[in-house]
């Protein structure tokens, strides 16, 4: 664990842990976090994790399965499985979904490293080699060249050597979960090589061939989603109870009762929310209900399993699971005879159903799908509801969810709304399609096992925390309440944990929430403020 640079070949090194992070190495933060002692110390992995889980990369555990091989046989078996998975990744039928983009990225990287500095994780970590966008790509490339192409063993001497052993395999799997798939690196590549995609494909290899993936994504994620109805475990009955509770809550705030449409056949819109909203931030679906009802939109929610949870974690690690969930969403929309599916404030659900899974839906499942953002902007633009921006007269900044913005191109509507309704709105730098990930991307926001949250908060979310602090430097004092508008459930989860980790609500009065909450807060009809400035 010396300070010397980790090389590509080192991934197979027979040491217990390849890299150790220290606070001193990490990127410095702006005031009031610019002094030592302002952030929590990093911890050591607990010793009994070491034999069962993979702590061999940087001591952190993303894949919370006890899958670490113990015997020589298990190690060999693992390497064998890995290679057979890799073969399938390069095969037309098994991986038609990403074969062309993958092959191009394997083949054409010039190793110019133009992409490195675009990566928030690489920079935040103090430029640790294992987090460099090209690191895992180069490892995979060398394995393919050496082990899966004719004469590879000899060629490897010239094109870059690597040893494929069990350490290589387990570290590569963990390293694929040190990248948020934000694809900021890809934007800067002169050749169009996509290192985010490489992480995605490595994850797929492990999941699709061996069933190895973080529990939050697979077992408790897509599998639970398909089996029980939601990755949160929420059942149809539970869902209906929450809707009633939300109706009560709205009545209290609005002064009159709204009937939230559920399972209404023939409505124009099937609105789908991340089920995490119902459980953690019910004010968000409540705000949607108020806005849609007041604006006279024809819409419905669904209480059917899978459809009351918009998430599709498959988009991060498994194409088959992605297709299963997306198809289920579409099937239920077809049954309800709606004109289109509209996705609420959830970035990856936006991208999954509108962009990535666009090409697994055909015929009756091919239902139009769109973002809620333009519809919300239309409400403001066409003055369908009376708003008084003065009600939002506090500092607001906007976080751009990667999935909705860089990866789907929904950039302007949310900004236009904030320009209209938030007099103290200020942008982060950089923003829009060049934004930084919240640190919770690609499933990190929901991966809460063992020490992974520490890594997420200290490293992955660090750049976003820095940006938030910078956006509010003129009003950083805890006397002024500040609002980070994050129109995405996973981003909200990551930002909640990050603010909490750095104790920012107390130190700086920084709060967070969605976009619709701000909209409802500005409604003339509402007597009491909708936003309660309460950290939850």
């Amino acid at each position, binding site marked *: 664990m010396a300070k010397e*640079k980790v*090389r590509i070949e080192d991934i197979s090194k027979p040491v217990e842990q390849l890299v150790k992070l220290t606070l001193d190495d990490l990127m410095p933060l702006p005031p009031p976090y610019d002094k030592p002692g302002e952030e929590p110390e990093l911890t050591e992995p607990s010793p009994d994790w070491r034999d069962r889980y993979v702590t061999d990369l940087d001591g952190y555990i993303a894949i919370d*399965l006890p*899958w670490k091989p113990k015997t020589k046989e298990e190690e060999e078996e693992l390497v064998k499985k890995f290679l057979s*998975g890799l073969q399938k990744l390069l095969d037309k*039928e*098994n991986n*038609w979904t*990403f074969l*062309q*983009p993958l092959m*191009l990225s394997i*083949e*054409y990287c*010039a190793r*110019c*490293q*133009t992409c*490195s*500095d675009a990566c928030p994780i690489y920079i935040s970590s103090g430029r640790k*080699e294992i987090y460099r966008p*090209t690191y895992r790509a180069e490892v995979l490339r060398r394995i393919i060249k050496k082990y899966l192409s004719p004469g590879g063993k000899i060629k490897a001497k*010239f*094109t870059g050597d690597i040893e494929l052993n069990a350490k290589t395999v387990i570290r590569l799997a963990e390293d694929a979960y040190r990248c948020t798939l934000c694809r900021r690196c*890809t934007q*800067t590549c*002169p*050749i*169009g*090589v*996509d290192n985010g995609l490489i992480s995605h494909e490595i994850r797929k290899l492990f*999941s*699709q*061939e*061996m069933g190895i993936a973080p529990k939050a994504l697979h*077992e408790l994620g897509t*599998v639970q989603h*398909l*089996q029980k109805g939601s990755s949160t475990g929420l059942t149809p009955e539970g869902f209906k109870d929450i809707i009633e509770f939300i109706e009560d809550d709205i009545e209290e705030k609005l002064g009159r009762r709204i009937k939230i449409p559920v399972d209404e056949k023939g409505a124009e819109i099937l609105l789908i929310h991340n089920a995490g909203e119902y459980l953690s931030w019910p004010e968000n679906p409540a705000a949607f209900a108020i806005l849609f009802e007041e604006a006279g939109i024809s819409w419905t929610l669904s209480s059917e399993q899978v459809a009351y949870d918009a998430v599709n974690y498959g988009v991060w690690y498994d194409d*088959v699971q992605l*297709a*299963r969930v997306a*198809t289920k969403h579409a099937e239920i929309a077809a049954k309800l005879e709606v004109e289109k599916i509209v996705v609420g404030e959830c970035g990856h659900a936006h991208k999954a159903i509108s*962009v*990535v899974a*666009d090409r*697994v*839906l*055909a015929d009756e499942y091919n239902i*139009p799908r769109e973002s809620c953002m333009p519809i919300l902007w*239309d409400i403001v633009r066409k003055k369908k509801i009376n708003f008084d921006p003065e009600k939002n007269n506090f500092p607001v900044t906007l976080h751009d969810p990667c999935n909705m913005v*860089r*990866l*789907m*191109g*929904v*950039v*302007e509507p949310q900004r236009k709304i904030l320009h209209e309704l938030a007099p103290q709105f200020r942008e982060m730098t950089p923003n829009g*399609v*060049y934004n930084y990930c919240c640190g919770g991307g690609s499933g990190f926001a929901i991966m809460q096992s063992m020490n992974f949250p520490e890594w997420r908060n200290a490293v992955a979310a660090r750049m976003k925390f820095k940006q938030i602090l910078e956006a509010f430097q003129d009003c950083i004092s805890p006397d002024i309440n500040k609002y980070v508008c994050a129109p995405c459930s996973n981003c909200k989860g990551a930002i909640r944990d990050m603010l909490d980790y750095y104790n920012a609500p107390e130190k700086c009065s920084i709060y967070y929430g969605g976009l619709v909450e701000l909209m409802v807060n500005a409604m003339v009809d509402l007597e009491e403020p909708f936003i309660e400035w309460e950290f939850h």
Partner: protein
Amino acid sequence: MIWLQALVYFSFTVFVLVVLAKVVKYATMPIHLRWELYPVPHEKGRAEHGGSYFEEADWWKKPRETTLIGELKDMLMEMLFIKRVFEYKRPLWWFTYPFHTGIYLILVWFALVFIGALFEIAGFPISTALVQQLGFLSWLPPLIYYLTWIVGVLAMALMLIFGLGLLFRRLADEGMRSYSSPIDYFNLLFIIAVVATGVAAWQYDSDFAVARSFMKSLITFSPLPSVSGATVLHVVLLSLLFLYLPFTKMTHFFGKYFTYHKVLWEDEPNLRGSEIESEIKKVLNYRISWSAPHMKPGMTWADEVLKVSPNEIGVWKKEEEK
């Protein structure tokens, strides 16, 4: 020296065929899931802020507005100026840009030599003198003469100096060095050697007259003029480079076309009844052999999705717990 011409024909043919084969290989890969990345420059009126048609409610009812100009502009900026390296890695740009300019110029030089050779075959000598038979175009041969000289010398200088510069940078830049393999150095050295022998050949052919005669002999399949040893060495090396190039990642000149046009800017929606939709139906019939517990190997993609009931979806278990 017919073998030298044969080598040139051979290597050039192999170059073209292998590049074509690779293009065909990528062009015929199955349709993939959408994976675009914004800004997408053909989004009319939206590319500026990186937006897409998804910024519009009911986008699927409206005609899609795209602009070829926007796409061409971005492409040209990247091709002619290597914009992304300029923006994101300026120190490297100062080396790689002049080097690539040298490559472009040497291609222009080849074109000029080719045109010059055609003129000479037609009986109009290329020299500093005006060619009266060409009437009002009498100035063309001297123009070609001077242009060939300027472009050729400039190209050699750029490639030689900045080729060495790139070599030096690769060694000096930590990040680049640790990712470089022997082959990366070999590639650069190979190019530098070709240029260096070119410079040597030029010592015996200061106005590229021999180069033109050589080209003439290639066009007309006639015997070679007598050439210097340096020229022979240069032509041999250059031919070998052409043989070698298509097998390396230096073919990124066309790889780049696919990464941008077929992946990062490919945002064609799957509308009902569209061609995309029928392609999708085809690939959904491909068979899976993935063997994780939640897969049913041997099934088609469509069946994996529609026919596997949620309760059949297994998850990973430790051996002893199975």
